[in-house]
């Protein structure tokens, strides 16, 4: 609707949801040489992206529209796309690239895809479980000239899009005008599970693979390393030792 600038009175919304493949959050991260070695790690959809997908599907169900899931990554990331296809996503797109990109490069590629696809709204997770940076949603919105709300914990669609976003000392209830980018936290959202029919359909589904070239990055990775090991602490037996610990917190750690 809005891509033509004509409001024809319906509520068919063109919805995009960004998903990312990351190491399963229960996996151990190992370093080989000076780089993280993910060769023996199980990969999965980033946890917050599941809430983004759920909210996107609920948005569609509230008044009609299409949901397109987009990922950037190598062929292995198709698994994540098939997983969300099985949940009810209509279209799946992979921007084919396995090279490192800084936030600037990644967002410019995504902005191009979102603009050319004529989307009205983009859902994403509040941050990806690998980088944890949470930059993609707000950065993409800025490039598109759109509004954005981040870390939302609740969403309603009746009478326009309204979200709940944590704010200092409480929650902000915010009314969102499209187009917009919405980054999603867990909150009260319960995600649906795929059923056998969905999984079978997803198996046959085609991933729309689009080749891209990674822009030149002005951030380069120097090294990865394990966090410094903590020196062994002091361990006490029995509840009465809580008194000793309280004393140490004051006299040794100087924090209370």
């Amino acid at each position: 609707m809005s891509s033509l600038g004509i409001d024809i009175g319906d509520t068919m919304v063109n919805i995009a949801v960004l998903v990312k493949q990351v190491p399963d959050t229960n996996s151990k991260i190992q370093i080989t040489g000076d780089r993280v070695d993910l060769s023996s790690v199980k990969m999965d959809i980033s946890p917050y992206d599941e809430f983004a997908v759920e909210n996107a599907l609920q948005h569609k169900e509230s008044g009609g529209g299409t949901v397109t899931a987009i990922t950037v990554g190598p062929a292995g990331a198709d698994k994540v796309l098939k997983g969300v296809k099985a949940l009810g996503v209509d279209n799946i797109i992979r921007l084919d690239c396995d090279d490192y990109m800084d936030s600037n490069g990644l967002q410019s590629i995504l902005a191009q895809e979102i603009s050319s696809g004529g989307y009205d709204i983009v859902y994403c997770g509040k941050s990806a479980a690998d980088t944890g940076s949470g930059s993609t949603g707000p950065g993409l919105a800025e490039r598109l000239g759109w509004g954005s709300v981040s870390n939302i914990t609740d969403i309603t669609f009746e009478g326009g899009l309204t979200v709940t976003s944590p704010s200092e000392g409480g929650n902000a209830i915010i009314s969102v005008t499209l187009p917009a980018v919405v980054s999603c936290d867990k909150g009260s959202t319960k995600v649906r599970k795929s059923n056998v029919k969905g999984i079978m359909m997803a198996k046959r589904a085609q991933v729309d693979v689009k080749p891209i070239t990674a822009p030149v990055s002005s951030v380069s990775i120097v090294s990865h390393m394990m966090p410094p090991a903590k020196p062994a602490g002091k361990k006490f037996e029995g509840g009465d030792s809580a008194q000793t610990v309280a004393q140490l917190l004051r006299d040794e750690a100087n924090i209370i």
Partner: protein
Amino acid sequence: MSETIVIAELSKGRISATTNELVTAAKNLGPNCTLIVPCKDTDIANDASSISGVSKIIAAKSGIFSNYDAAAWAEAIDNVSPSGIIVTSSSTQSKDLAARLAARRSIPVVQDVVEISNDGTVLTSPIYSGKALQSVKLSSDAVVSIRANVFTPADNSGSAEVQVIDTSGNIKTALKEMVQRASQRLDVSEANIVISGGRGMGTPANFSHLEEIADKLGAAVGASRAAVDTWDEIPHSMQVGQTGKTVNPNLYIAVGISGAIQHLAGMRSSKYIVAINKDADAPIFQHADYGIVATWEEALPVLSSSLSSLLG
């Protein structure tokens, strides 16, 4: 080296002490630190004039700063900010703003920095929720967000001048209502001390024993994912861990929490960690500065009365 621009961190409408830490980080990244204070009432900027190492303070004055709208804040701050490396805190809101500012200037953003090399060229941040660290080099200006409680705060013996500049930005979302939290207690992401309970607490009602200690310490109460998933009374907003909140307070007290990798990822960078668990082999003890092998029923009453007498 680039100029540096620090965006003051605000809390309850005032400049927060974290701002002094940001100035230290900025001084590591380059000379000539300009401090920008986003404000509606420019009086608050005067509080920053004593921060050492700041060469100039810009009070960016606009009505849009009364509520957070990412697009408007980024535009209004961008308008008054010189070019260079921009430094923000890595609070939830400031990371969002950092990403916006970077995109606005088509420069990269590096979030959650915990270390800057002496020559200011290598920045280190946690990845995989702190299971590993990543060091990067910049070949352009960037926006850099800095974790709180890591850098030594700059002292308050300076005297920079405050310049007021009017600015504005287009608000793209509409605040309908602010709902204040029912309890006066801090959120885990805002507190300097956090006490968290796990499934070992037995019932959600037993979290009242954690609240009692939290009240004495001015702490926030958190929970493990197991506790949040098991009990409806424990909301996700309390969850510390990889799929909850990442915290790095001065003191983290884990009670009845075994220390699953998921939980450790969210709190391991806390300055001091105290663990109370009846299982002497619980993984949490490997990360604790002070471990107490006991049930919470035995340890918490003693801890509570000891704190009362110490804190008077």
